[in-house]
Each structure stands twice: as structure tokens, then as C-alpha cells.
């Protein structure tokens, strides 16, 4: 009898087997030649979105001879991505972001010094619209199927200022309402790289802010995108560990990304240099009140990545509130994608994303959940035959019973 209890205790002590499985990688961005450079970059890392059974991926490459933005679609569970469609119309375009919109997708990007927006769906493109009159960059988007919001950094004199705008869709014409600053006080230093998440109560926003003499992350919320709550600092500040070092203002943080479950849960992830000897680490924080307040800063990566810098963090939250972070780091020699997910108030061991690991560089991930809890992941990796392209894989979480 005693032996039986011991065996049961041993069994219960084993960790529940819970893991992600990913389908083989599919190419997204088509075949490109030598000298074509492909980038998956946007404020908040919003390069992939899901609307119903359609997936849209946006990126920038120079296949036309200059950097331009592109979109490709995948419909249903089978088949590949459509041929790329160019979105931008200017001399140079960068950092496209995508979000679901009624009947298709909303896209925002930087083009020749301004932020532009456009509706896109398989076989259909809306007109290109400039989102504001002032010099702007670093656009990001968030939507919940009905509401669409954009944010970007707008030049005001010598400084950049984060603004948020409600987007409306009239047929296939996507338009930005008047953009409003998140902080009513004109910036004394740059506000950069915003990220948005929509909640049941409104819109949550986070951004990089240099007003304190080093980069901090700030957050705010708004019910209507017009009036914002007082700002809150997101990242904990850690001074130098060397008390003799009397210089500088603080450690570095950068490239915050937000995601939500559409209800009250908002998760943030960012690169944080508080342990500065190993470069940036991946930190996260979770809000369960729609982004008004966040819990303590949590280190999302495990200790095996500590002696390497981590880059390009993205985050996704499922409709049931599951929080997943992904980034790239070169702990195995070359950059690979690493995934971690939150279990209670802790983070899992880092999982190498199988189709995005191995020889060559697999980097710059972005991801989004669909309504069924499947995770749609994109990244830049080697193209067969040379060069690089955007790749896609869909993952599913499996929590096996004990």
C-alpha cells in the first residue's frame, strides 16, 4: 500500500506534458533572387493577422529595385500563399503592419516619410490613403473584427510623439480619423515604436519613451481612442550593479509589443538590458484589467538563453487568455526562433520552434492566434537556392492529460 502511494506521488510529481507542435514551414514571400532583402518588421511586430479562415502576411523587400511593402494571403487549411501583391506606391516603403478588418485586412506602413493605410483582401485592394499630414513612421495596428485602431510616431519639431487614430472602412476605403496624442504634454524627448491591443473596454497602448534620459516603456488606455488615461511606466528600472559607476541614466529597454484576448487580458513583451552583460533579455508583463495596470515584470526566457542577446520579441494572446512569446537568439550558433508560454504566473522552458531552427538564420518572428486557438507564426529564413524569404507555420498547443 505504501509503495502504491509512493508511485502515485512520483507520477504526480512529473510535469504534465504540454507542448507545441508546428506544421512544416510554408513559403510566403515567393521566390526572390540574389540582392533581394526581406524584412518582417513593424512597431509591435504585427506582420501577420487572421480573419475568419484567411491569413494575411505583410513584409518589405526590394524585389522591384527599391524597398516596398507586400501582402500575401492563405485561405483555408490547405494550399499555399497567394502571389505577393505590392501595397506601397512610393519611392521607398518600410515596416508594414496588418490587422483584420471587415471583409479583409487593414494594412499600415511607412512610405517616403509618412504613414499610409490601405484595405486589402484576396484579389481586392482599396485606395492608398495617407494617415496624417505630418512626417510619421513606426505604424502599428490592432483590431477586433469591428474596431480598427492605428498608432504611429509623429514628428513634432525635433521630437517624435506617439499618436493613436481610429480607422474607418467605407467599402474598400480605409481612412484614419484625426490622430490624438496619447500624452497631452508635448514630448521633451522622443516617443517611439508604439504597440496597441484592443480590449472589451477600449484600446491599450505601450511605447518607448526617452523623457527620463534613457528608454522607458510607458502605457496608457483609452475607451474611445480620443482621451487617454494618465501614463504608467511598464518596465522596472534597474540601476547599474556597479555602485562606482556614476554615469548614465539607466538600463535599456526597447521594442515593446502588446496583444490581448479581446476581453480584459493584455500581455506585453519587450527587450530588456537590466542584466546587461548578456545583452537584451525577453521580459513580459500581463494585465488583467484591460491594460490599466500590469503585474510585475516577468522574465519570459529561460536561463539557457542568458549568455546570448535575444532579439525581435513578439507576443500573442489566445481568446482563452493563453499568453505566448516568441523571439530569436543565437544560443545554438545561429539565430533560431524560441517560444515560451505562460503557465500560471511563470513561463515555460524555451522551446525551439522546429520548422524555424537549424542551419542559417531564422529570425524576426511575428504571430497571431486564430479563434480556434491555433498559432500562426511567420519569420524570415533561408530560401532554398540562396537568399531569404518569409516562412509560415501553424502551431497547436497540446496539453496531454496526466
Amino acid at each position: 500500500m505504501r509503495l502504491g502511494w509512493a508511485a502515485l506521488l512520483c507520477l504526480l510529481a512529473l510535469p504534465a506534458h504540454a507542448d507545441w507542435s508546428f506544421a512544416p514551414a510554408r513559403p510566403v514571400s515567393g521566390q526572390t533572387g540574389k540582392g533581394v532583402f526581406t524584412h518582417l518588421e513593424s512597431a509591435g511586430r504585427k506582420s501577420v493577422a487572421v480573419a475568419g479562415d484567411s491569413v494575411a502576411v505583410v513584409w518589405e523587400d526590394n524585389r522591384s529595385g527599391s524597398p516596398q511593402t507586400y501582402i500575401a494571403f492563405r485561405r483555408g487549411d490547405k494550399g499555399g500563399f497567394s502571389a505577393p501583391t505590392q501595397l506601397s506606391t512610393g519611392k521607398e516603403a518600410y515596416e508594414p503592419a496588418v490587422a483584420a478588418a471587415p471583409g479583409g485586412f487593414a494594412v499600415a506602413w511607412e512610405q517616403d516619410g509618412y504613414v499610409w493605410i490601405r484595405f486589402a483582401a484576396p484579389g481586392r485592394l482599396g485606395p492608398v490613403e495617407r494617415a496624417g499630414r505630418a512626417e510619421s513612421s513606426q505604424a502599428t495596428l490592432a483590431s477586433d473584427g469591428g474596431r480598427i485602431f492605428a498608432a504611429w510616431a509623429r514628428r513634432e519639431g525635433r521630437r517624435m510623439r506617439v499618436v493613436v487614430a481610429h480607422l474607418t472602412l467605407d467599402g474598400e476605403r480605409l481612412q484614419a480619423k484625426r490622430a490624438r496624442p496619447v500624452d497631452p504634454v508635448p514630448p521633451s524627448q522622443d516617443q517611439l515604436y508604439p504597440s496597441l491591443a484592443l480590449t472589451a473596454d477600449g484600446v491599450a497602448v505601450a511605447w518607448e519613451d526617452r523623457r527620463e534620459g534613457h528608454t522607458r516603456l510607458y502605457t496608457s488606455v483609452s475607451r474611445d481612442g480620443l482621451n487617454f488615461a494618465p501614463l504608467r511606466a511598464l518596465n522596472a528600472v534597474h540601476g547599474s550593479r556597479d555602485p562606482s559607476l556614476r554615469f548614465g541614466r539607466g538600463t535599456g529597454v526597447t521594442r515593446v509589443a502588446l496583444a490581448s484576448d479581446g476581453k480584459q487580458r493584455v500581455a506585453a513583451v519587450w527587450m530588456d538590458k537590466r542584466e546587461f552583460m548578456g545583452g537584451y533579455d525577453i521580459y513580459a508583463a500581463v494585465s488583467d484589467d484591460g491594460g490599466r495596470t500590469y503585474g510585475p515584470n516577468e522574465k519570459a526566457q529561460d536561463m539557457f538563453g542568458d549568455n546570448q542577446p535575444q532579439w525581435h520579441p513578439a507576443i500573442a494572446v489566445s481568446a482563452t487568455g493563453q499568453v505566448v512569446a516568441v523571439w530569436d537568439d543565437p544560443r545554438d550558433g545561429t539565430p533560431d526562433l524560441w517560444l515560451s508560454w505562460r503557465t500560471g504566473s511563470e513561463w515555460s522552458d524555451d522551446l525551439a520552434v522546429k520548422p524555424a531552427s537549424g542551419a542559417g538564420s531564422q529570425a524576426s518572428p511575428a504571430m497571431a492566434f486564430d479563434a480556434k486557438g491555433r498559432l500562426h507564426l511567420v519569420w524570415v529564413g533561408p530560401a532554398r537556392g540562396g537568399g531569404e524569404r518569409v516562412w509560415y507555420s501553424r502551431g497547436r498547443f497540446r496539453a496531454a492529460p496526466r
Partner: protein
Amino acid sequence: MLNSSPWLRAALLVAALFSATAAVAEPPEGYPFVNYGEGLRQAQAQHKKIFLYFGRFGCGWCAKTNKETFSNKALRKLYTEHYVLVYVDAESGKRLTLPSGERITEMELGARLNVFATPVFAYLESDGKLIFKAPGYKTVKDFEDFDRYVYQGIYKRKTLTQFLADPS
């Protein structure tokens, strides 16, 4: 008192602004640092190597290096004469063009070079090829040694470790 003295208020404001900017890590004063693209252009035109300073806004070790090392006049003369000086903000979204023609942000350059911490000092050939990089605070002596290693072409026949162990 402050209300009755607008000149004093203005002076204090200027002093506060000065102290605020003095703590911010930026290129050291008196050095002709340029951005990456301009530096690459100058290096190729002048057949000079590039000294690349990866800094970060608010970086303490960068500020310490600026104040205690780059303030040395002889070092300033040496590096201004021998190199094209390039400053990169490791958290910046400003774009630069690599020798390959690829357009990336300053921060992405740090990711490509796997820059751990700031400051990082890198020495590049005039075509942008990396010779070596050295992270962390450095003294005047460190930079003088690095200069001999690079400027005299010793890097072509010795590793930096070999050179520093036997600088003759």
C-alpha cells in the same frame, strides 16, 4: 526668489538642460562622428578604416567612456586622423544602407553583429567588413593599442589576443 529673478530662472533652466543632456550617452564632444551611410561613403572616398561606436541612449558605460577616455586630446587627434568615425544608437530605428545594398535600422545592425552590451567599439575596413569588435568601457591605453593593431595592419597577421600579449 525665483519669481523675482527671471534671469536666475533662465540660468537655472539652462543649467538643468545642460546637466540633463550631459548624462545622455551620445557621441563624445569634439569628434566628427557621422552616421553609418555617410561614414561608409567617406571611408571609401578617403581610403580610411571605420571606427564604429555602438552607443545607447542613457548608457552609463558609454557616458563614462566619453568623459574619462574620449576627453583625451591626443586620442581625439589620433582617431580623427586615422579613422572615419561612425556612431550608431543601438536602439534606434534610423535606417542605414549596408555595403550589400540592404537597408536596415541601426538597431538591426546591432542584431546582425550580435552586440551584447553598450558601448561596443568596432573597427571596419573601408568597405564595411568587420575587423574586430571590443565591448565595454575602454581606457585611452586600450584605444591606443587597438589603433596600433588596426592602423598598422597587425590584424592581418595576428589575432588581437596575440597582439595584446606581445605588442612588439
